[in-house]
């Protein structure tokens, strides 16, 4: 097979011909039609199956339309077919990075309707595990946000440090991501032996890791250039869209349901600071979450010092039958306001549950936010809003 390609026929090239051709192209009106770019549904920057249909004019976004529902599991329908103790298994899967925090408001709703109060020790352990969920969620964010703007190293730190916290949660509940640990009236088990000291050690690690993230990511010039002034949410617009949690506090709104909402768990007994940032841009959202991680570490240390002894379950009937009525419970989840509006008709299961998840409203502002930004900033804004697809699609 030693065939050779035939040689090209000889021809003369007139250099002026090309110049004329180029001139002809320059002379006509440039066609700058809009381009439609599909981000997702499987895009590394979208944390799951969020699809963004972005209409572009050059590098600039004209309009963006998030297409959700690829992971819709219909929890609001499914819970109508289950009993109260079964439902905690489902709602674990709403925001899977902070599953324990999802269970708390729902159990709180059932307990309010039944008139049951969980014993103090159970309340303390719930608060500790809720704050640990917040830490594990935020530490992952602190690393992953770096990844989204092009820095690979912080992501490894984020996963490494989260592992410590997830191991703690696993050693109490038996589940790394889906603990299903809350019961109506208390908790499934008590803390294991030696857990408190182990937690103190881990909290010190996390607290030090926050300094690393502050230097490595927040103190990085490139990171600041990519995030400062990008994706600004004005406070009044954010609130009208239902944006909550750290995203709203990064816009200067001093509103935290742990302090300002109806009292729940043992937050009224805790001494903590609510962090806000006046800028409202992507950097502010990063900075607020960084401070809140530290604040959560301080809170858990306070809780461990004050942890009372006693039972972990209140006296409840063997079969949970919730009296008729309706109740709204809301808590400050890592991603924002999480709430359940439960209608009960006196059966073993709820009649209707409205699940108010934080990411759903946080992402609904995207069409407003993305108008006019550049394509690379789209990724930064998505990352800084920090949503979980299960929390959007429910």
């Amino acid at each position, binding site marked *: 097979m030693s065939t050779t390609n035939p040689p090209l026929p000889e021809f003369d090239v007139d250099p002026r011909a090309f110049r004329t051709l180029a001139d002809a192209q320059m002379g006509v009106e440039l066609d700058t039609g809009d381009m439609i770019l599909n981000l997702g549904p499987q895009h590394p920057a979208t944390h799951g199956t969020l699809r963004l249909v972005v209409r572009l004019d050059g590098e600039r976004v004209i309009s963006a339309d998030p297409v*959700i*529902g690829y992971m*819709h599991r*219909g929890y*609001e*329908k*499914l819970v*109508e*077919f*289950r*009993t109260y103790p079964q439902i905690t298994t489902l709602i674990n899967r709403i925001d899977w990075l902070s599953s324990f925090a999802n269970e708390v408001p729902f159990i709180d709703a059932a307990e*309010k*309707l*039944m*008139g*049951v109060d969980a014993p103090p020790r159970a309340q303390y352990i719930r608060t500790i595990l809720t704050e640990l969920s917040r830490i594990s969620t935020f530490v992952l964010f602190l690393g992953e946000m770096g990844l989204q703007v092009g820095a690979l190293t912080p992501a490894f730190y984020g996963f490494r440090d989260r592992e410590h916290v997830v191991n703690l949660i696993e050693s109490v509940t038996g589940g790394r991501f889906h603990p299903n640990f809350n019961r109506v009236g208390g908790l499934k088990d008590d803390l294991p032996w030696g857990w408190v000291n182990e937690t103190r050690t881990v909290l010190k690690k996390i607290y030090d890791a926050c300094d690393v993230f502050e230097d490595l990511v927040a103190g990085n010039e490139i990171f600041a250039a990519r995030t400062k002034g990008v994706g600004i949410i004005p*406070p*009044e617009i954010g609130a*009208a*869209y*239902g*944006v*909550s949690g750290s995203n*709203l506090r990064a816009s200067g*709104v001093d*509103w935290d349901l742990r302090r*300002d*909402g*109806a009292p729940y768990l043992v937050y009224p007994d805790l001494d903590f600071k609510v962090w806000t940032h006046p800028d409202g841009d992507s950097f502010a959202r990063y900075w607020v979450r960084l401070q809140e991680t530290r604040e959560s570490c301080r809170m858990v240390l306070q809780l461990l010092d004050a942890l009372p002894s006693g039972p972990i379950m209140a*006296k*409840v*009937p*063997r*079969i949970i*039958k919730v*009296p*008729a*009525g*309706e*109740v*709204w419970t*809301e808590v400050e989840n890592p991603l924002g*306001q999480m*709430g359940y*509006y439960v*209608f*009960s*008709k006196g*059966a*073993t*299961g709820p*009649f*209707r549950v*409205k699940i*108010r998840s934080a990411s759903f*409203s946080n992402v*609904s*502002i995207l069409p*407003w936010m993305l108008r006019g930004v550049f394509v690379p900033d789209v990724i930064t804004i998505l990352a800084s809003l920090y949503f979980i697809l299960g929390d959007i*699609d429910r």
Partner: protein
Amino acid sequence: MSSSGAGAGSRSSLTDVTPPDSGESPEATTSTVVEAAAEIPDPHALDDAHAELLARFENELGAGVLDTGKAFGMPIVRVQRTEWRRAAEICRYTLECDFLSFVAGVDWMPAPKEGGDDAGGDTSSPVQPTETTYGVTGSDGRFQVFARVQSTSRNYGITLKVDVDDDALLVQSWVPVYPGADWHERETWEMYGFVFDGHPALRHLYLPTGFEGHPLRKDYPLLSRVVKPWPGLVDVEAMPGGDEDAAAEPAVAEPAVAEEAS
């Protein structure tokens, strides 16, 4: 059920064998009931900020308020259909409720059990009462839309409800007041079929385009349970050591409320 509270969640219902609202018991017990009420505060009572919010809202909307109630410290107002958007405007611009929590719908019809509970299909789900009852502020018909707004500066919130006409299924949209109502109303539209008057584009949000039916309505079956009966009860076999009684009766049949775990 239109009165507020309606005995829901009263703290004596757990330990007492008799339901709390059986007031026609002998007079001797009334004194103890009064004592119990004195030491346990009403769980539904509004604090000062919420009571003031409710009073101001009623004052602003006037005749548009159909009914008011409260549930666990949360004021609930049922407004007239024609005043739904004005209620939102009052909340946002007068009462400083700048934060939209959610907009959602509810179907008060009991889920039909075709052929009874033992006609195959789903036997494991909780049995709901078959009579139609409504929430705290009542309802005119089968469908309601309810929404919650809150204030980030004054730390209060209010739940608003509006009845939906069973024939027209038309509700005023909140999008001009709260832009965040956009997605919530799209979800409610596809889940219940309510049309929001004034919404810019009622497109499917979760469900695929062209989906037929309204899944959160009570007469829409949970298809997975229709196709295949829930295997949970089938799998239950008697333990080798006996315990036939526990296996024979389904877990949902007439639970003993007074029975307590140790």
